[in-house]
């Protein structure tokens, strides 16, 4: 990205982009599709436009929502030992800590981290991006919705949960026989979709398109 040199160029602040990580100023120039504009001091990705990003984001967000509903209530894993068996869904996993005491808080947290927050983020992204994709004005409170979605990003832990599954399966492997339910595969697919969705979103592009100034009424 080009450096900001003279004071004359600072008159139009809309063309200036400051790296959120190191405060370096750049002149905002949107790179070609598929290219990335990075901060020249710290390498942070500033702008990364993708072809058809909004439509694809919508498709993926819908996929996440539908898969998550399925993955939550279908049997996730089942275990058999000595003629006894127990099937558990993702919902049961989240409720594993419910004992009426302080552990219940942990259940709520686990449910939020692996199910509620990923779904909520998908819905928020749908709400924000859908009008932009069809060139309409953003819906009311779209900026607040996108802010919330961004704040929740580190707390969406579906992909960590999948690695947790792998570890749990090995641990339980010599105690009992474990079978995979349909929800297990749904959840595995879900993680791939969430990661794809993350790589599509260029935050700066969305913020620019949400800006009321850029939308002649």
């Amino acid at each position, binding site marked *: 990205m080009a450096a900001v040199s003279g004071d004359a160029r600072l008159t139009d*602040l809309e063309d200036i982009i400051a790296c959120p990580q190191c405060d370096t100023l750049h002149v905002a120039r949107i790179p070609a599709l598929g290219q990335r504009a990075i901060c020249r001091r710290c390498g942070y990705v500033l702008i990364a436009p993708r072809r058809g990003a909004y439509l694809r984001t919508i498709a993926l967000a819908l996929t996440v929502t539908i898969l998550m509903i399925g993955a939550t209530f279908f049997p996730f894993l089942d275990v058999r030992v000595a003629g006894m068996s127990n099937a558990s869904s993702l919902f049961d996993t989240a409720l594993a800590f419910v004992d009426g005491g302080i552990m219940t808080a942990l259940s709520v947290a*686990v449910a939020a981290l692996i199910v509620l927050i990923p779904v909520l983020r998908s819905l928020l992204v749908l709400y924000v991006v859908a009008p932009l994709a069809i060139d309409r004005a953003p819906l009311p409170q779209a900026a607040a919705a996108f802010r919330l979605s961004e704040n929740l990003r580190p707390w969406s832990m579906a992909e960590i949960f999948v690695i947790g599954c792998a*570890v749990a399966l090995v641990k339980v492997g010599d105690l009992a026989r474990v079978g995979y339910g349909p929800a297990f595969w749904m959840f595995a697919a879900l993680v791939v979709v969430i990661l794809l969705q993350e790589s599509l979103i260029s935050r700066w592009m969305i913020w620019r398109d949400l800006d009321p100034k850029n939308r002649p009424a």
Partner: protein
Amino acid sequence: MTAPIRTARESGLVACTRCARVWPMGTAECARCGSALQSRDTRSLQRVWAWLIVGFMCYIPANLFPMLKTRVLFTETDATIVGGAVELIHHGALGIALVILVASVGIPIGKFVAIAYLALTISRPAALSSHRRHKLYELVEFIGRWSMIDVFVVAILSALVQLSVVASINPGPAAITFALSVIFTMLAAQSFDPRMIWDSGSERAR
């Protein structure tokens, strides 16, 4: 690439850390995304230390108390985080034991040290360059969430292995303190304003 680096602060501007828009110094709220604007988050370090200390306090009981209570027929065994990993090594599952040890011991301790180092070197001369310290910060931000893995393992096992008298697995008290420790250190990393890393670097260069 030869043009000198100019920061928003040096140009009398304040940058929005969320949407990267710049405004004249003194603007209180970003009109594009609605975030509160601050040229440098001056109380950032206080919050970092507070969260870090609470996180560390939660990490101690997380290692002392059992994480998992396994009951097979009539024998009940409690396993701490490290104890569980040692058990896995005895079973020959070296790879999985390594994952647990890295995620539950290596990453948390590394994170305490790294965040403390970053916070200390804001006001003191640092052995590492700003670039190195910024890489360290990115690593801490990226990797911190992965410590949650052990909590999820406990949740899966406790939900799955409930076979009345034959075998059952239940969570121990360490599960909750460990989860809290991970959450608090994530908050510590998020409170840190990485722009200060670069400020201290450029001040010494002059």
